[in-house]
């Protein structure tokens, strides 16, 4: 990470209670004044296991006549801000032969590259990371935010069971081929990551002078990190090529942390918040895989995480987020919910607690439990859109700058990578044409039984990367002979 143009100190100064203009206006105004790229924000939103098929999923029409199938109906309040997509294929990295495993489909969805198996966690850069890099490049090589990107998720259950490397099921963000960026599931840890080691927790509250104890702590941390950097660099010279590369990952993380520690504000202790505008305080919830309290509630977990990513956007701590609602092949029991009863036209509250996710996936496409979980996932997408739409920015809201790719690597109970459920949300600054349902038909060189093949998932990613974020890539991921990249998909554009 290069030095940040807007340090956290500035972020906090901007968050001062005397601030009377809408919070984010300062960033927008600064960007315009500096002649830098306009503020654009990206989110990968992942859910596993696909969706219940048939009448339960899908959308038709545009504008006022757009209608949503029952599972998508939670998005009705924000219907003008979404674009349900049909015909998105997660099969081209295999050149037509889909390997229908959960881990493979997940690992491929946001990288566009077939992840190597069985034991090597070798993949490729994911779209969120490519977009983060592009944001940095478009800003003259320096990040405009303290954090390059943020990876979060909700999975508290070890769902790794299909014999593939764990990261293929657990991470949709990859810095490069060898570096999966595991998401953080603990709300408190997400908060701490966002505030980079935390604001001074104690000190001379009320004074206007910097806290000397906090200054000493910062200096000690820097001293420790300097030592570790030097020590690891010396060590690196004694290691073989591949081990040196492994330690290189370590060194990068140490240096990035040093940047963040250096940028940590040492002001007078005030509100203890990252930015007062967000109203988010440090959550008490600390979760890990296999470590949840007896009263754990996935719904509450989701709400906390949505508040935190909203804070990240609102305070401009990062513009790139990847969010895994659950891990690939999750069999988490969604029994905090009651089944809904689905019909041709909608759904109503039903009876009985929802069961395990993966078991439901394979219990037939038209079962209410499976549909209820996907319905819940769409409700969280709706929550995100609603939250971003409430934050004023410039003449509009944060949502105007956002593009969310909400999707899944797998179609549904058949394990296939054809026609995977996908919804885009947000126009990304007026670039994407929301308020319409689109079926992408007619991939080239379609052979055999792949007649459903529409467009490559990678080309949807490419369209966002190039058109919303101003990159100029020819393709994203791999382009295989049977399913070559068709470049930017103009039908997605406004």
């Amino acid at each position, binding site marked *: 990470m290069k030095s940040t143009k807007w340090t956290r100190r500035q972020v906090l100064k901007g968050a001062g209670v005397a601030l009377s203009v809408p919070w984010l206006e300062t960033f927008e105004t600064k960007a315009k004044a500096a002649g830098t790229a306009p503020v654009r924000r990206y989110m990968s939103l992942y859910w596993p296991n696909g969706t219940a098929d048939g009448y339960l999923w899908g959308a038709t029409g545009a504008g006022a006549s757009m209608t949503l199938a029952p599972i998508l109906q939670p998005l009705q309040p924000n219907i003008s801000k979404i674009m349900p997509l049909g015909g998105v294929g997660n099969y081209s990295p295999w050149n037509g032969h889909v390997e229908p495993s959960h881990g493979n489909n997940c690992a491929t969805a946001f990288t566009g590259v077939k992840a190597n198996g069985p034991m090597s966690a070798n993949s490729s850069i994911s779209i969120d990371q490519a977009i983060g890099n592009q944001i940095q490049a478009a800003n003259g090589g320096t990040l405009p935010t303290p954090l390059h990107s943020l990876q979060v998720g909700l999975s508290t259950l070890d769902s790794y069971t299909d014999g593939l490397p764990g990261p293929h099921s657990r991470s949709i963000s990859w810095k490069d081929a060898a570096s999966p960026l595991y998401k953080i599931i603990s709300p408190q840890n997400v908060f701490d990551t966002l505030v980079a080691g935390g604001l001074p927790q104690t000190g001379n509250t009320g004074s206007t002078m910097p806290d000397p104890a906090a200054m000493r702590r910062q200096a000690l941390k820097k001293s420790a990190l300097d030592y570790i950097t030097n020590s690891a660099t*010396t060590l690196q010279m004694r290691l*073989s090529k591949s081990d040196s590369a492994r330690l290189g990952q370590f060194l990068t993380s140490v240096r990035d942390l040093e940047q963040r520690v250096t940028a940590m504000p040492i002001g007078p202790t005030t509100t203890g918040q990252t930015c007062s505008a967000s109203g988010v305080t440090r959550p008490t919830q600390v979760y890990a895989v296999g470590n949840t309290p007896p009263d754990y509630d996935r719904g509450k977990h989701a709400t906390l995480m949505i508040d935190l990513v909203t804070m990240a956007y609102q305070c401009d701590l990062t513009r790139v987020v990847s969010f895994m609602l659950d891990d690939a092949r999750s069999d988490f029991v969604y029994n905090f919910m009651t089944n809904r009863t689905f019909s041709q036209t909608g759904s109503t509250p039903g009876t009985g607690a929802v069961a395990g996710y993966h078991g439901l996936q394979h219990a037939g496409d038209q079962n209410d439990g499976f549909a209820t979980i996907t319905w819940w996932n769409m409700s969280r997408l709706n929550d995100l859109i609603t939250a971003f739409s409430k934050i004023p920015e410039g003449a509009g809201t944060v949502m105007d700058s956002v593009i969310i790719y909400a999707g899944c690597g797998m179609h549904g109970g058949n394990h296939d990578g054809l026609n995977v459920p996908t919804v885009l949300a947000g126009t990304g600054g007026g670039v994407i044409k929301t308020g319409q349902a689109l079926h992408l038909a007619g991939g080239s060189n379609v052979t055999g039984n792949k007649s459903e093949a529409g467009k490559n998932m990678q080309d949807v990613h490419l369209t966002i990367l190039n058109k919303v974020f101003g990159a100029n890539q020819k393709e994203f991921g791999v382009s295989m002979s049977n399913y070559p990249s068709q470049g930017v998909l103009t039908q997605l554009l406004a």
Partner: protein
Amino acid sequence: MKAGNESKVSLHLTLACSAALALATVACNGAISGEGQPGGGPGAAGSGSGIGGPSGTAGGAMMNPPPATGGSTGTGGAGVVGPLDSGRVSIHRLNNLEYDNTVMTLLGVNGMAQATFQPDEQGEFDNDADAFTMNDARYEQYFNNADTIGETVFADTAATGLRQTYVYGLVTPPCTLSATDTGCSSKIIAAFGAKAWRRPLTTAEVMGLQTLATNAISLGETADGSIKQVVKTLLASPQFLYRIEFDPNPTSTVAHSLDPYELATRMSYLGWSNMPDQALFDLAASGQILQDAVLTQQVDRMLADPKGANFTNSFAGQWLGARDMQAHQVEPTAFMNFDDALRSAFIQEELLYFNQFLTGPPGGGPALPMTKFFTTNTNFVNTRLAQHYGFGNPTGTAFQMVTGGSPNRIGFMGLGSFLTFTSYSYRTAPTLRGKWILLNLLCQTIPSPPANVPKLDATAAPTDASAQQENVRAKLTAHRQAADCFTCHSLLDPIGLGLENFDAIGKYRTSYSAGGPPIDASGMLPSGEMFSSLSQLATILSMGTHGQQLTDCASHKMMTYALSRSLVDSDNPYLNQVRTTWAGQGYGLKDLMKDIVTNDTFKFRRGEAP
């Protein structure tokens, strides 16, 4: 494991590493030999071989290449000659379990990695060195945690407190810290550093850390605070967070013996998922660890130690699926009486079952041979599990060994844990049971399923009785009619169909629903053997080719875990050596471990071509 009572087994075995176990270890007051005189090691950037090692007996062996197979051990691997490749292990980040254990041993506090960190990446096992990665969020966890641990230890200033016990007390005779004199602080740094980095520090390394301490004093810290700064920094350093083995020449592919401290560390993380104790450090300092007889003695000692439960919990917990059982979900409407007490009993039994093949039955006696893994008629039950199995009525929460509890429940495939975690939440999945046995106990390769798999259950939800009481055999029979499905399912299904008398939580049953038609648990393996009961199936899978696959698979799995890397073709000669030796020892798993740790692929490593 030893137990005071002939048949009672104490409950050390829990899945998460118990803090109590680590607390039970003796606080290290002795100093590592050579500490305080670190000049015996190499320069900081010099050769990595022979760190702190003696120039005595074992030293001469250290640079020898491994002997060619086919010599004294008489391998079964058809006349392998020529140079072998002992392989290499990448630098190895401590996984969350190893980190927590190590922090507990080193400083007496809970590392909290399992409770709060990102989960480990996972290869074949969660100690696979090649699978580990580092990213910003993960490193920040380590760094912040080091800060927290350092504060905790140095806040406990009592004479018997953490700071004295785990840091200052390492120096004998005790010295007095001063902000103006580095004599005492350097001694403490050298002593604690040698434990944190699992090897003596060089003079240059001690000086570097002393400079860090001096800087802390110039930033306003006290003398105590300067040592705290060093402790925190060491906990966030790569030499602590990674197990690093050095090659004298990193670009040479010629094998060389591990440094004694590196070998002690390999042993320690294999047997205990923890850092070496003083005995292992002493054996490293004297070089005796390089002797095979010492290594096999250490296997005995380490498995007899309470910390040896870590091996069972980690290795068997992963290999035999006890961790899958921990995470497995059961549909409450299908199995109203399934609860955490039963889940816990399943896991305990599975680990105890494994232990009788490792160290022998509780109360003593030789280990059972792996060849009886499918057929032994022992179970380990408490009241809850005995009721579930329909075994009379043992009382109490302690586990008892039961022999011949039921003719229907035989061997590993009769264990409640296995039968449950390979099922769906609401019904059995014979295909998954068969696939699990083939993959994990017979080490067979299974082809991937094709796309567009038709569903077995048309519409019923898992909460519907019709789905829960599905005649899965009939459904699978119909499924196999499709040519696409036949190839795989004729391979995958028979074993699982032979287990249909056990429901999705491993309870014995004779029909899919009350009053329904009886369950048919007969079948034929692809290799042609017919069976009509679990005991027949278990016997068939223990004989001939299948029996060979079972022991071969066990050696493959344990070697993978012991080396903490995936095995490759060049490992086969070494694997064959181990298998040949093991075959002559009666197939106990502790003997297998001894054969592995004395094998050259465990004791040697090499660099890699640039």
